[in-house]
């Protein structure tokens, strides 16, 4: 028997009434409930590791960007020590925002209200008219810094958490690290963000896009059928459900809720269908079809930065789409272009909560730092055409989510449950090397259900 949750809302509804672990259902009510939202902010967004950007955005000492950790605004800055610091953008004097711009370079951040000043690492410097001690009569300046978050750089990606003593970043990644490394830690110079992220707000709860980021592969066949109609993926408009392109592969996930869909390029995209991969070595395969974002020149770097098994996987069945719990979507995809080429699209999205019924979709677009400038240009276009604000794939996602949200408000509708009953169950494919929960074959509900179990675990924790 599953142990009952200790989390009970004011009206007597328990977490088990919302996340039904015995029947693999989730009540639509989770999308609208304000009390639940407040708890999520404390138990998830003020606790777990959140993605805030990439260190290539702030290369110089004093460079800073301003980002959100849910509804908490933070300054992400490179200090004189060269390290990246994340501190709450709330002046400890009277609560004003210290940094009002989104990006810049400053050695001193001075609050415009009464002038308290802070270093890039959040340390308090002083208040104006020093002799009058406007920071307090007997107050130690060390106690007046901006609240600091714990920071971890992973492949240059900036992650932060308010949980100073909580799980390490590696513990957070768990078994997914082996696969994530293949995307984020594979080249000598690493990734580079091509420009500030696209940002837009959708009228829906963060979990509507969130649960999809738990590797909802199935929706591609219907919601994204324009990909098949446009001839990008295998199959034709008439044969979409027969051929089910992009559906067969190996989905991986872990109890932390992260997941990735690993797909063979030749079975996913029309333009690669005839590439002669049979009997080829790893290196030969990589030469024939480099992973998205990688050039032929970078192939030796893959062998240097990854294990042989990891490179083998990249060459045969690379991870392409997935997510990091709670709110990151990963799309490192082959993106065949209308002009015939393919240099891939590398994007990450965060779905930042902005209230129970608002979410900010932030779209970060990357390239490998050492890629030629023309390739970066192509990848930028691929990403913009397919993802984010105007992307032809994600336009349609952004169309669905607010409608689900509208439905969730109905007195009767909110009792409808989301179903996660198409389960495969963990199964290790023959010869598979990586760890984690593995789901070979047609993409099913397993990884998304694991996303909800990770949600349950954090919400249930005291």
């Amino acid at each position, binding site marked *: 028997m599953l142990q009952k949750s200790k989390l009970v809302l004011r009206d007597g509804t328990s977490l088990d009434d919302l996340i039904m672990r015995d029947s693999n259902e989730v009540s639509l009510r989770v999308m609208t409930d304000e009390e639940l939202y407040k708890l999520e902010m404390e138990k998830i967004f003020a606790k777990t590791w959140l993605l805030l950007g990439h260190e290539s955005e702030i290369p110089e000492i004093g460079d800073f960007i301003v980002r959100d950790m849910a509804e908490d605004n933070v300054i992400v800055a490179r200090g004189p020590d060269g390290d990246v610091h994340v501190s709450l953008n709330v002046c400890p004097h009277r609560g004003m925002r210290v940094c*009002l711009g989104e990006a810049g370079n400053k050695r001193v951040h001075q609050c415009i209200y009464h002038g308290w000043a802070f270093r890039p690492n959040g340390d308090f410097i002083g208040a104006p008219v020093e002799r009058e001690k406007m920071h307090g009569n007997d107050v130690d300046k060390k106690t007046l810094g901006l609240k600091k978050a714990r920071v971890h750089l992973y492949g240059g990606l900036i992650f932060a958490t308010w949980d100073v003593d909580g799980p390490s970043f590696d513990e957070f990644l768990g078994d997914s690290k082996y696969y994530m490394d293949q995307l984020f830690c594979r080249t000598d110079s690493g990734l580079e963000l091509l*420009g500030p992220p696209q940002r837009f707000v959708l009228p829906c709860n963060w979990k509507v896009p969130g649960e999809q980021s738990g590797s909802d592969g199935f929706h591609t066949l219907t919601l994204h059928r*324009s990909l098949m109609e446009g001839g990008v993926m295998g199959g034709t408009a008439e044969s979409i459900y027969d051929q089910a392109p992009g559906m067969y592969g190996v989905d991986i996930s872990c109890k932390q809720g992260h997941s990735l869909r690993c797909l063979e390029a030749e079975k996913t995209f029309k333009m690669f269908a005839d590439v002669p991969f049979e009997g080829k070595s790893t290196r030969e395969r990589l030469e024939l079809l480099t992973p998205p974002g990688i050039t032929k020149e970078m192939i030796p770097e893959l062998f240097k930065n990854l294990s042989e098994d990891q490179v083998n996987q990249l060459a045969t069945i690379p991870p392409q789409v997935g997510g990091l719990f709670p709110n990151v979507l990963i799309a490192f995809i082959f993106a065949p272009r209308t002009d015939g080429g393919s240099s891939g699209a590398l994007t990450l999205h965060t779905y930042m909560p902005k209230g129970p019924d608002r979410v900010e979709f932030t779209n970060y677009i990357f390239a490998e730092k050492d890629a030629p400038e023309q390739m970066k240009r192509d990848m930028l276009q691929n990403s913009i055409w397919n993802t984010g604000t105007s992307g032809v794939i994600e336009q*349609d996602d952004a169309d669905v989510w607010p409608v689900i949200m509208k439905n969730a408000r109905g007195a009767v509708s909110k009792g409808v449950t989301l179903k996660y009953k198409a389960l495969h169950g963990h199964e290790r494919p023959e010869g598979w090397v990586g760890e984690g929960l593995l789901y070979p074959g047609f993409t099913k509900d397993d990884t998304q259900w694991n996303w909800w179990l990770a949600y349950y675990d954090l919400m249930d924790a005291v």
Partner: protein
Amino acid sequence: MTWKTKSTATPDATTILRGLVSKKRVPLGSEIYNRILETLYDEAAALDERRIDDWIAMIAQDIIYQAPIRLTRTGPNRDRDVMRTMFHFDENYDSLMMRSGRLQKSAWAEDPPSRCRRFVTNVRIGECETPGEYEVVSYLFLERSRGDSPDNERTTAERRDIWRDVDGEYKLARREIIVDQSVLGMSNFAVFL
């Protein structure tokens, strides 16, 4: 166009919004001004009436159609806020054809379609160096009604265009859409600006 990635934290002068650059003004009320204004109205009507093929017919094959990201900036960098390193749209003729082709099939974002009104105002025109090309700066106010929502989605922008006289018709050769929002309030840009 050569592409150079640039630091977001320390922007260079390419991030300044430049409105009308040409010094050779085409005066309001002149024949050319009136014809171009008419073209802008026709273009808005083609898009609002969802005659997408008519719109494509108004576009030159060498079009560059971009909508850079806006950032909020302070101090000495306060006017360096048009990030021409990242875009909401970054299109050429082929990609606009791809988008318009998709709209005729399963583009759920516009099926059912949104009902749009494009208000085009504050039109300023100047002559380009190339004869027959005109720099056209206009303001755009887009109201977009979707589904059964009584609240329109909306956005405002400045458009910096180049229109080219091709056999007596004006074709859009360049459009830079400077949106005013750093965070868009519209759920997607499935419509053209």
